[in-house]
């Protein structure tokens, strides 16, 4: 199996799986963008790119991101996908990958780095570019995870692996043959889940990509309404829960994908009813991408994508595929039920997931301890409740510092979802004889602190 990657060197895969010049590849500002128009945009943008090796694609518009991503591939560049856009992460990336520039659609910028702004209109000059083919072994993207050391850890993604995952994910969906699907997504495209399901999956299946990212339930409903049927919604439990609670009117959504956190069965049922949809949950992680799917209402177990296999290792289970150079360790605790299926048993306590953003407590603690003036400190995850999103708290020993100064420093280092609520400034941290900070001590500290907030369950009158 060690020569699998080598044997791929000469194989290529196209940007657009099925290629029909006039079929809709994307809906951009309400306009259907045909395959030919997309390829024209790609070749026009490719000619504007600087001769750099790496690109950080900051485009918030999904169509602009797609064009930038494809143009970079055509220009032999690799797209870097930072775990979050915090200034410190960006500076670390630029330090590690100095031969780098960024792409923007005008909404975001990176201080101190050469940037190219994509100005796309809905009627590009026809360039006659053909559907490009890229080597399967080419590293198309590098997805970074926050890692346990605080430094972003690179996970290279070959073009071949991204194409394979898109095709196999497509095969595992309960799709009926027929008209192409239009994909509407609430998730960003700069993470692996979003990139795989909202860019690669539609490209490889010949489906249409909606360029927006509707956020509130009302937006999601009206955006779906504006798309031709069959529709697919790519989302997260947080957004799906909001849709159910908002009582908005939804059109029929043939397929709904959910990932980033477990979808409670009750919520899955409500979503299937509200959207007249079939929900498929995706399980994956940045190191491997999507590895399994399930229909949460109908099955408890997860089924691996075709041709993937599980391996037992000393520190857990790993997944192997023809497109990985070596087996990849699964970060959650799983229980295989047969060669192709497993159940999720939970995640190790040092890993946390808030609203689909994953981090290791060790890495967050390192960020906290790296702040000037912080003598000691830990992040702590209170017991999670299903009805609301539980946030981290932090216990910090920092004589002379304020909660505001610590939050301000943290804001440059970690993603905002991980900012502690609240920061408890304390005199010393009760660590046991081995230096560990115990859960019971954390709970005791929280009880001791004056809390201004009422219980979140307490009803208030409007």
């Amino acid at each position, binding site marked *: 199996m060690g020569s699998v990657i080598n044997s791929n060197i000469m194989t290529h895969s196209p940007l657009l799986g099925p290629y029909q010049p006039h079929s809709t590849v994307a809906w951009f500002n309400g306009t259907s963008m045909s395959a030919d128009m997309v390829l024209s945009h790609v070749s026009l943008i490719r000619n504007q790119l600087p001769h750099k090796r790496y690109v950080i694609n900051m485009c918030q518009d999904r169509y602009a991101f797609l064009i930038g991503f494809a143009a970079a591939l055509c220009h032999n560049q690799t797209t870097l996908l930072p775990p979050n856009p915090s200034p410190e992460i960006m500076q670390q990336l630029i330090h590690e990958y100095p031969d780098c520039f960024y792409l923007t659609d005008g909404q975001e910028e990176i201080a101190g780095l050469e940037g190219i702004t994509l100005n796309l209109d809905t009627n590009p000059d026809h360039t006659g570019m053909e559907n490009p083919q890229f080597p399967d072994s080419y590293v198309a993207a590098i997805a970074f995870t926050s890692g346990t050391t605080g430094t972003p850890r690179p996970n290279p993604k070959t073009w071949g692996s991204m194409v394979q995952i898109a095709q196999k994910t497509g095969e595992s969906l309960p799709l009926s043959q027929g008209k192409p699907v239009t994909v509407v997504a609430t998730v960003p495209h700069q993470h692996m889940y979003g990139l795989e399901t909202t860019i690669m999956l539609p490209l490889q299946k010949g489906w249409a990509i909606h360029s927006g990212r509707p956020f509130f339930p009302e937006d999601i409903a009206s955006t779906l309404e504006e798309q031709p049927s069959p529709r697919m919604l790519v989302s997260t439990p947080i957004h799906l829960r909001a849709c159910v609670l*908002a009582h908005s009117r939804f059109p029929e959504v043939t397929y709904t994908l959910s990932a980033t956190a477990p979808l409670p069965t009750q919520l899955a049922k409500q979503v299937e009813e509200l959207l007249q949809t079939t929900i498929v949950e995706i399980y994956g992680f940045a190191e491997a991408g999507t590895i399994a799917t399930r229909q949460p209402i109908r099955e408890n177990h997860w089924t691996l994508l075709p041709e993937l296999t599980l391996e037992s290792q000393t520190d857990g289970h790993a997944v192997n595929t023809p497109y990985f150079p070596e087996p990849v360790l699964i970060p959650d605790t799983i229980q295989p039920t047969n060669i192709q299926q497993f159940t999720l048993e939970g995640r190790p306590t040092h890993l946390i997931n*808030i609203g689909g953003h994953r981090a290791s407590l060790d890495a967050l603690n390192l960020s906290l301890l790296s702040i000037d003036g912080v003598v000691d400190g830990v992040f702590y995850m209170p017991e999670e409740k299903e009805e609301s999103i539980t946030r981290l708290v932090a216990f910090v020993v920092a004589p002379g510092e304020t909660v505001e100064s610590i939050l301000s420093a943290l804001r440059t280092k970690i993603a*905002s*979802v991980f900012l502690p609520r609240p920061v408890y400034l304390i005199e010393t941290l009760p660590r046991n004889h081995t230096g560990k900070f115990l859960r019971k001590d954390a709970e005791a500290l929280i009880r001791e602190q004056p809390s201004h*907030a009422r219980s*979140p369950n307490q009803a*208030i009158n*409007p």
Partner: protein
Amino acid sequence: MEERSLSDQTPFETEIAQLLVTTLNLKVEPGEIPPSEPLFGEGLGLDSIDALEIALVIHQHYGYKLRSDDPDNATIFSSLRSLCEAIQKNREQ
């Protein structure tokens, strides 16, 4: 002239501040939220998950559905005061 609390909140701003504190489980007194300071990022430190929660609870209490394609959004979420003004303008009577 509406009555203002010590922190310069109007009674409706105090009502919404209480709603935010309860919904988002914030560890501040509702009356301590400065009505003109940013809710997101630096100010109160809210993020997009909070925005969804706020939208839901405002819809439940006042029948006003927030939309992200509303051109006034940047203004609506810029502070407690502007959020309150948007709710009062759009709430179901």
